[in-house]
């Protein structure tokens, strides 16, 4: 192991990790918003929007992120829409994640038993009150494990960003391998960087899920 090499280049990894995380978090937040809107359109079966949301969900879930990114980055400029690599990464992740989040939220909303909706109705709660006090709290606890899994999945998907020349972790690693052939060091730092990013979140989510499961029993 070439420690000097590591010492010299680890700041590059930190910089690209920060970029990866920034875009990852931005994309995930957007995908939660997109997913929530789509899930509500489908839950309430809003005419037209229901169909659009369902079609979007299927399109985003049944195509690879890298192909979506290529379309955004290399395809769209041909019709005059030029996006920076950062914008591409964010939009791509939100497009992909929105579909996954929409499915998770929708199954949470759908899990609320009919009798609870009828009980709310017979208490005189209107649609908004029922959503806020009865549906959302129950749906949230049902959706949480799936949403957590999506977050980790999306964090891992950020590794694809280098394909649209976003200077992320993979990009840095590949660059260093290409320039100096210090493959072992470059890959070790890459693995450590991803471990630091994903492992704590994964542990927190596992604990959270265990607690939720415990509460529901």
């Amino acid at each position: 192991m070439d420690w000097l090499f590591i010492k010299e280049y680890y700041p590059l990894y930190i910089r690209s990790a920060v970029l990866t995380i920034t875009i990852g978090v931005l994309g995930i937040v957007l995908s939660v918003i997109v997913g929530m809107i789509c899930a509500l359109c489908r839950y309430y079966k809003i005419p037209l929007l229901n169909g659009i949301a369902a079609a979007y969900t299927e399109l985003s879930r049944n195509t690879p992120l890298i192909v979506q990114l290529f379309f955004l980055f290399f395809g769209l400029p041909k019709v005059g829409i030029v996006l920076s690599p950062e914008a591409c990464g964010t939009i791509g992740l939100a497009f992909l994640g929105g579909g996954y989040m929409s499915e998770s939220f929708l199954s949470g909303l759908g899990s609320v038993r009919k009798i609870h909706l009828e009980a709310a109705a017979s208490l005189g709660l209107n649609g908004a009150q029922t959503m806020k006090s009865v549906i959302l709290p129950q749906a949230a606890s049902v959706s949480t494990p799936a949403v957590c899994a999506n977050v980790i999945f999306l964090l891992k998907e950020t590794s694809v960003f280098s394909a649209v020349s976003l200077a992320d972790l993979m990009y840095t690693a590949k660059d260093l391998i290409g320039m100096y052939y210090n493959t072992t060091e470059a890959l070790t730092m890459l693995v450590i960087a991803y471990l630091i990013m994903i492992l704590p979140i994964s542990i927190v989510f596992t604990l959270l899920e265990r607690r939720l499961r415990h509460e529901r029993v």
Partner: protein
Amino acid sequence: MKGYEVLFTGNNFLRLLSGLWVTLRISLISIGISLVLGVLLGAAMTVRNKAVKAVCKVYLEVVRIMPQLVWLFIVFFGITRSTGINLSGETAAIIVFTIWGTAETGDLVRGAFVSIPAHQYESGLALGLGKAQLYFYVILPQTVRRLTPNIINLSTRMIKTTALVSLIGVTEVLKVGKQIIDANRYDAPDAAIWVYAAIFFMYFIICFPLSVFSKKLADRSK
């Protein structure tokens, strides 16, 4: 030339399809091997031996924690470097996707076995079935029923993930697309949007029916 015409000029479309076949072949081979190894792993995960269980669990978590692309890099660049063996991108990809697929299949198999309620075993035994009969007539059919939709989902995930192999130098559909775009840079400058849209829908046409099918199966077994 209009951009979309590039798709149908010469044998371009056929070239795209053969590029797609490269990734599909990688996924199919990996899925095939993963199924066999995954069933074995899943069976290992249900044994009572704590050490075996722990080893399986560690394997699963280690595979899961890293993005597949990182694994591709580790195997493609790392193994080449440390052993001197020159792996082709395709071989590296099959190794990575098999290791991953085995882990995920194993977990699904374990989950399916565990989800069979105890009273199924008990009522089978109460009917006087032998152990082999119990598994063959009662437990396995239910396990397979629960497993199939999940395995199809996993396959869809693997097919989508194989699109990454272009990043370790395999000439698959994205690479072929780029070649076509580059070759027509002057005749059809807007070819990129059409080519990438075409690739997008190629993946969709493969994965969407699989998703629908698995959902149908899952609903039926409820």
